[in-house]
């Protein structure tokens, strides 16, 4: 019988990888398994717009060499979809019919692109940007000098849009309430930010709503968005950037409290004794606001992963919810955001 604990981490992003490294630092002998849907080892998704600057080899986006997984003794399970977590029996069920038992589980599954209810049926027609593959598909489908239509315009989308403008593409933005997500901006700030985007060359469509997405030929990407007044906006690709929805479906049987995300204490502990959560998948209790809140952004997510790992090892640290959340435009019209710090 072994006493070496087995830590399973669901998710391989900055929270997951940071947690794995922290676990190894704190326990040289423990077993660490990282399960992810992704095809690639850990890379910096915030650098994905770089594919439009010619970085087409995924290895160029990696922050750590693949060999580091072996060096750290991390068992990496890629292209592995978690379909269920049994919080009582303590095992994770994978779609390919394998159960992975754990002693302690960290959920860092992040989120998937949120889509307004009226557009969900068009999901398959639109381009995503959540992975290297998606970024490369966009690069392939968007002709040089072509136009990307963005619905929403969260901060991931704005970052990409700025890169597209810099590299000779056109961007049409159809605003929604998720524009500039996850920042909460006043009407005045929003107008100022949108003006900055227009000044940068972006076409901004305000005070309207996308109600349909279509393509002209089967096999080609969607290239047209219908607005609520019947107007058609044409481009080469259509992309939703409406924030994230936490990936929690597989946690329904895990005996944890769930709202929009997994509800965790400031120690990032779920209501299940052996399960922690970190990153975009969790809502952390904010004692001052008496509510569970998301804390998005690379820096926050990484900090959460490392903190959760330390707590899994026995510490009792609290996530500092008083974090800086700022978006601004400088004198040159350049937008800066704490979301982009990485």
């Amino acid at each position, binding site marked *: 019988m072994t006493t070496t604990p087995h830590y399973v981490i669901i998710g391989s992003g900055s929270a997951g990888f940071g947690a794995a490294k922290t676990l190894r630092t704190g326990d040289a002998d423990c077993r660490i398994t990282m399960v992810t849907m992704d095809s690639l*080892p850990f890379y910096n998704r915030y650098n994905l717009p770089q594919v439009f600057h010619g970085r087409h080899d*995924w*290895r160029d986006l990696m922050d750590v060499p*693949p060999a580091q997984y072996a060096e750290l003794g991390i068992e990496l399970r*890629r292209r*592995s979809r978690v379909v269920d977590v049994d919080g009582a029996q303590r095992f994770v069920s994978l779609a*390919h*019919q*394998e*159960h992975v038992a754990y002693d302690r589980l960290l959920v860092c599954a992040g989120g998937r692109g949120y889509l307004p209810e009226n557009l969900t049926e068009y999901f398959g027609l639109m381009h995503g940007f959540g992975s290297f593959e998606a970024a490369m598909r966009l690069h392939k489908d968007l002709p040089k000098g072509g136009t990307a239509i963005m619905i929403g315009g969260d901060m991931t989308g704005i970052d990409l849009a700025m890169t597209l403008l810099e590299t000779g593409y056109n961007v049409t933005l159809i605003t929604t309430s998720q524009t500039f997500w996850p920042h909460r901006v006043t009407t005045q700030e929003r107008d100022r930010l949108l003006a900055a985007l227009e000044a940068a060359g972006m076409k901004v469509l305000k005070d309207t709503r996308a109600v349909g997405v279509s393509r002209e030929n089967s096999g080609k990407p969607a290239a047209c968005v219908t607005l609520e007044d019947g107007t058609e906006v044409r481009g080469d690709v259509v992309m939703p950037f409406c924030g994230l929805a936490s990936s929690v479906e597989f946690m329904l049987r895990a005996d944890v409290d769930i709202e929009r995300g997994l509800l965790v204490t400031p120690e990032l502990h779920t209501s299940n004794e052996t399960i922690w959560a970190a990153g975009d998948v969790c809502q952390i209790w904010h004692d001052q606001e008496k509510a569970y809140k998301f804390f998005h952004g690379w820096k926050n997510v990484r900090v959460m992963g490392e903190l959760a790992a330390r707590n899994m090892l026995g510490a009792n640290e609290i996530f500092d919810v008083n974090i800086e959340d700022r978006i601004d435009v400088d004198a040159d019209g350049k937008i800066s955001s704490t979301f982009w710090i990485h």
Partner: protein
Amino acid sequence: MIKSNDTDIQIAICGSAGDGTIASGDIMKRAAAAMGFNVIAFDVYPPEIRGFGKCISRIRISSKQTYSLKQESDVLVSLNDSHAIPHAAEVRDFGVVIYDDNLVARVAEGGHISAHIDAAQIPYGFSIRQISEQATNSSRSRNVVILGCLAGLFDLSAENFHDIIAKKFATKAQSVIDDNTKAFDAGLKAGRTVFRLDDIKVRAGKIKSNGAEAVMMTGNGAVVRGFLESEIESYFGYPITPATSIMERLAVEMPPRGGKFLQTEDEISAIAATIGAAYTGSRAATATSGPGLALMAEMIGLGVMAEVPSVVVVSQRGGPSTGLPTKTEQSDLNLAVFGGSGDAQRIVLAPTNVEGCYRCAGMAFDIAEIYQTPVILLIDLYLSNRYETVVPADAGTYTPKPRPQINLEGGENYKRFEMTKNHISPRALPGQPGLMYTATGLEHNEQGRPNDDAHMDMSIKRHEKLKGAVHYPGLNVSKRFGDKGKVDVGILGWGSTFGEILETMYQAQAEGISCSAMKVVMLSPLPLQSIEDFFDDCREVLIPELNYEGQFAGLVCGALGRPVTRLSRATGSPMVVREILDEVRRLSGREPAPVQAVGAMGARS
């Protein structure tokens, strides 16, 4: 040398017996050959006829000439994870592992191959079983689905696969061809939808531009072709792995050509019948493996003593005894060269590749008849079962020679074993008027009559007559490759291992090591002068071979008394290029190889 813009990928397909693994590999290699690539392929399968043993088909596809399989595969396809998991580590960094990600039955933790894919390798999961079922209402076509996945991923021509599938199943119902084609197309569609993350490059195939159509051939197949083109007339055999396919093919090919074919009750009968038929002037052969050769030793001695030309193919496998029936080894060299009673020198030829099998088999009857002695064609499982693309025009350097005319004047003075200048005597066939003689295993005089006093003279005759064989035209009994003149390291090799030796030599040269390689095709008699010249040019000589004792090294050392470094391996698997290269580096002083536990066999002697 393989350049960066060449195609050079190795695909390993791993499954369980009954999964269609070998059939899948067969279609893959034939399709690749049809696309114009050079192909080397080798299948590993279990000794059990049926059951759940592991099967692996490895196929190296290249736009350039290659000489062996690569140590690391670029692609591993798993049709059975429990078998494929140990081979995941064989895939190179940024290579690909393809597997079924939609299993029906639960697997134990760690039982899925995705748990064993290194972070630097690229996983591609497909619903292989489901795709097969949707396409054909059966999961039995998983082995063809994965070919479609490969074709889709690497943009290989579907047309070539369709064509090979149609040919492979031509003797079966049309529905079999249709289902396999559907399965392939469904896999193709799935493969094409996957975003590629690997760095594998497959460019258009372009085989040697002599206009000839390349054909896929195994070593055993090449032996058969050589036999048929040199007009074999009689074959007697008893089945034994890995030589059986020679017999099976000749059983089909010989009768329509007027040849005599007989499966005998055992190996002793097979060699006895072969010697008997050869005595009558028929071009006769048999094929066996090490255990069979052990049984044949006495009758081969009769062939030596009675100076009867015949051909014995020996495809080696792991031994002794039943040993490793489906694994390769080069451990029957001593038996082939020395086996039997008395001073029974015979000719032993050891081709190094498939084309060499064709060439040696084609020449073996001529050589046997000229030198009036048994010729052993010594190959091994790795060569017997290895597929290579061969361009017939290249292989056709052998042209069957006119049969030696047996047109002798009869009479009282006819001496079947006459002492001649070249020690080769006039050979008559039974029934020729006035040319009657006694063929016997007893020592005899020139007339063939039993006579003990002639033993010394006849021993000299039987040995001396073979010396000319090392100069036999067109055979290349030895050949040097690589750097000319003085070199730091020379690699001396024989048989199937020479492919790995050549690959090693080219890699060593690319590293700046002064290096040559020499193959020795005639093991008995040894071409001593050329081997000695090679030793003179090499500061160090390395002999890698697939046996524990270093039998070839022992043979060479015994003949020349020169020191060599042995690299002897008895693993049942082909020699590993990296191991040879490490040794070459060490010998050249470039980089010390790590000390390995090879005992005395790894030592210089």
